[in-house]
């Protein structure tokens, strides 16, 4: 599974992207966030306030209960500020 980070989630994790292989019981965006938070102190910081984190699965906005699988591209970022 490819995971991307943008804005301050990128700064805090120290990564713009990483390939991860979560266990089978990580089946939703919410479960993935909990699992990723354990990977490093930077990840823990990035996912400390889940209210401030938004997600896209395969480049479409996704809620915490959305399904994720090993072939998905999952991105985490703060609320967007375009325009």
């Amino acid at each position, binding site marked *: 599974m490819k995971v*991307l980070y*943008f*804005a*301050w989630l990128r700064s805090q994790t120290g990564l713009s992207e990483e390939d991860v292989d979560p266990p089978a019981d990580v089946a939703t965006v919410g479960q993935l966030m909990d699992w990723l938070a354990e990977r490093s102190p930077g990840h823990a910081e990035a996912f400390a306030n889940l209210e401030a984190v938004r997600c*896209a699965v395969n*480049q*479409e*906005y996704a809620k915490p209960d959305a399904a994720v699988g090993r072939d998905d591209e999952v*991105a985490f*970022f*703060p*609320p*967007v*500020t*375009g*325009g």
Partner: protein
Amino acid sequence: MIRVQREDFEIGAELSALTVGRHGVGGVASFIGLVREMAEGKELSAMTLEHYPGMTERQLAALEDEALTRWPLDRVLIVHRYGRLAPGEQIVLCVATASHRQAAFEACAFMMDWLKTKAPFWKLEEAADGAQWVEARDSDDQAVARWANNDR
């Protein structure tokens, strides 16, 4: 048409190109967003726009489709820049052309409201005391919400 680019754009050339040979068009409404030198009382030295390549283009294409579905438009153009920009530089160009002005004005406003809350861009403001990510505003959520119940 949508474009996501680092380079600046030339407003006159962009607007002229949209209506060449399209004599059914009676009006062109446009909005140009610029980098402001002041943000919450601080003087900015620069603003860096980060985006999600791939998703940005998908979202902007969806926005173009939505505008063309909701209003009787001829064409839509959105040009959005990314990278490090100085105060006064152009960030975004949003244009709608139509037979009549109301559709063009409304579609242009709709597209800007939508961009603020749904286009995957993030802004890092640089000032004398350091750099800070711009937080999303509730007022932008409210601005886009007014289009949700639009009966068109």
